């Protein structure tokens, strides 16, 4: 099908890409890095990400219908850009696979302590492959269904309200945190995913002039979900306790007990695979586009497998928690840099080209 993505689906897609495993670790991350009432940082970082999205919207405004590739190649020829594309594709592929591995590691801790990480991980990769080779319209349709199947989890928070207390927030703001740059990056990576919009431009149904707003809508949904979860975490757990719990959200879910249903955290966490899958798939999809543009001679069928296999082997050795964390940090930093740098670069290129045009037209 070659139809275009409607704005409604775009919003959902953005939310699903952004929403990742970081959510499960986020409250603790905030408590350790920013101290008491650390959840406020979610709002602040979200605002910064919003500015980032604004930059992208500017790119959209000035691009005059061109795709990202066309913008760049208007100034720099394709052959020169090619290595840059390939590098970007590689970084994003590795990042995607690391995200997937992160999820599987937690699944292992939870249910499959004795199973091979590699095998479980490969299953996720195969699922990602199955989806990424389909066209973007199908991917967005799948994402919408995944959204409906997972959004109800947020409402589980209602269960925790009777046990939460504002007292536990303490009146102190940002005390006893490490206040490190690393912390900021980690929180920022929780919001990454919107930069994929740059590559989605040609595939979106742009009949309504305000379609870009749906990117903001997706981002707002993500922010709301994160903020609610973090506030409730800070009110439910005491501060020091929160610093010790590796995956506070997992604990939150496991405390839900309604009549016959208890300990649903394994089911809920496994459903989360859907969100992870979309994150992985969309980064891979963008990487696929980049690779295709950088190496047009390669048969399209091989693009996805190559990316996945290369990234797989690069990250092969990283399979324990304390090794994965620094890798994620580095690549998260890289991805954040790309998310900020790419729109800035594109705007710069657009500006330069406009100058060139003006000069030519006297």
């Amino acid at each position: 099908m070659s139809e275009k993505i409607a704005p409604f689906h775009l919003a959902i897609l953005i939310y699903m890409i952004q929403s990742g495993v970081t959510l499960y670790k986020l409250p603790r991350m905030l408590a350790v890095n920013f101290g008491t009432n650390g959840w406020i940082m979610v709002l602040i970082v979200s605002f910064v990400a919003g500015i980032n999205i604004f930059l992208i919207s500017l790119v959209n405004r000035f691009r005059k219908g061109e795709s990202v590739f066309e913008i760049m190649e208007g100034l720099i020829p394709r052959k020169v850009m090619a290595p840059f594309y390939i590098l970007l594709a590689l970084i994003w592929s590795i990042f995607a696979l690391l995200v997937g591995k992160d999820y599987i590691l937690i699944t292992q801790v939870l249910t499959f302590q004795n199973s091979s990480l590699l095998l479980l991980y490969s299953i996720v990769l195969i699922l990602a492959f199955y989806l990424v080779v389909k066209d973007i319209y199908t991917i967005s349709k799948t994402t919408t269904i995944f959204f409906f199947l997972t959004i109800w989890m947020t409402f589980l928070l209602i269960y925790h309200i009777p046990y939460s207390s504002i007292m536990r927030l303490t009146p102190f703001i940002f005390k006893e945190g490490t206040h490190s740059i690393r912390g900021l990056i980690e929180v920022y990576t929780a919001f990454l995913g919107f930069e994929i919009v740059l590559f989605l431009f040609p595939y979106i149904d742009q009949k309504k002039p305000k379609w870009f707003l749906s990117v903001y809508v997706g981002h707002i949904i993500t922010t709301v979900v994160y903020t609610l979860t973090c506030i409730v975490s800070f009110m439910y757990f005491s501060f020091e306790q929160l610093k010790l719990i590796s995956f506070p959200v997992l604990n939150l879910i496991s405390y839900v007990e309604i009549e016959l249903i208890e300990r649903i955290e394994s089911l809920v966490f496994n459903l989360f695979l859907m969100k992870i899958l979309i994150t992985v798939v969309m980064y891979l999809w963008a990487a696929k586009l980049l690779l295709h543009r950088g190496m047009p001679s390669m048969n399209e069928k091989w693009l996805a497998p190559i990316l996945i296999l290369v990234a797989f082997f690069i990250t092969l050795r990283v399979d324990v928690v304390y090794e994965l964390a620094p890798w994620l940090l580095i690549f998260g930093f890289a991805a954040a840099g790309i998310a900020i740098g790419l729109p800035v670069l594109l705007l710069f290129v657009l500006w330069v080209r406009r100058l060139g045009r003006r000069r030519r037209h006297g």
Partner: protein
Amino acid sequence: MGVNRMKGRTTKLLHKLKELKQEAVEKDHSASFQKKVTENFSGCDDLVQRTFPELNITIIYFLHMVNENLLEMDLLAPIYHASDETSLPFLKRSNFHKTDDEKKVIHGILNGEAAVFHWDRAYLINISGPKHREIQPSETETTITGPHEGFVESSEINLSMIRRRVKSPHLKMNEIPVGEVSKGSVFVLHIKGIANDEVVGDMINRIEKIEIDAVYDAHMLTQLIEDQPNALFPQFMLRERPDAIAAALVEGKIVIVVDGSPSVIISPSSFFDFFQTGDDYYQRWITGTATRLLRFGAFIITIGFTALYVSVTTFQYEMIPQSLLTTLAGSRSKVPFNPLYEALIMEITLEFLREAGARLPTKVGQTIGIVGGIVIGQAAVQAGITSNVLIIVVASSAITSFVVPSYVMSASIRLARFGLILLAGLLGNLGIVIGVILLVIHLSSLTSAGAPYLAPLSPFFRKDWVDFLLRAPYSLMKTRPALPRTSNKKRKQ
């Protein structure tokens, strides 16, 4: 003076000779035309050939394809009443069609018409009336409220039932022959002005492209024109009830009638169409909505309940509520198999029972059903082959699978259920989620006549939600659904 008279007589003689020659040639010609036609039918002992030499007429028809009354009244009676061979006024009647085309004559005879050969000309008269089943309620599609008429195998009757319900000149019908050997007829109907012309053209194209010996049933035709024939789920809905077909036409859908089949194809169909019945629309909207929600709940249970059982007893024992723990573990402790095998054995046994029940004549079939259901289940538990909780689970799955109205769809769902059970046994809850993911990806990529299969959920068509999970009051159903891609969006035009 004698010469002139001679000339005149000679001319007359010459004329007469010419006439006679012409007659002879014509007789020859007609005889050969007739021969050419009848040659095709050599060996067909059921072909009747009657000659009336005094009228110079031969009639040819298939004995079992014609309606006896029509034969008597429209064909034989005029023949008996005809005086001589020169004036055969009945041949000029409107129901006699003159033709020179050999193929047409053959085709006509095959269709139950009678061919009348008079000299060089052939006439076809439609007196077809082969025996067929009377209009009865459909066996596979029943409603409690609503009309009970069901389609039969004769396309004429089916088409008449449809035309009766949609009395509009805009209801167009294209007849397409399908089947190299059988030359069956397939009729494509749509309402011009509502249906999307491109889609209509596409459908007709697909049918014309079919290369096969014969098509016996609409279900067979469906598989030949589907968008994705290798998919797990059917893409076109088949219904046996004229009111459903009329409703589909009015929504802008295309309907395909296959001669010889009591099922009619609706294209395009969405996944959720397979969960609708006529009753939904004929009852009050609140009850209709409740029934629909019930059906979706049944869908979830039938596809996932057994898988959940397997997953919980194999991997996730902590999910079992305390009160059930002792019963569950106790009954499972007697079973020598893994929960996965136990569940698969029970499910396969149930499938055996189902198939067997479908093949047996009704009287015996009912007994087997009861025997199978109660006795075998009970005995299995006591013999220690399964646990009693599993019997409940499998029975619920089976019962809820019958809530799905479409048989083809429920067969697909059954396959999916087995897949989920297997995945649950191998990877627990993660396996179930993986199975669901695979299903969702598969379903999302399916199209029906080019339209997305999971609409209005997946491409989100807000206005269609009035007839999706819920069934809203008719006052709220203002626009036609998006699936058929009609340009005529508002209803009532």
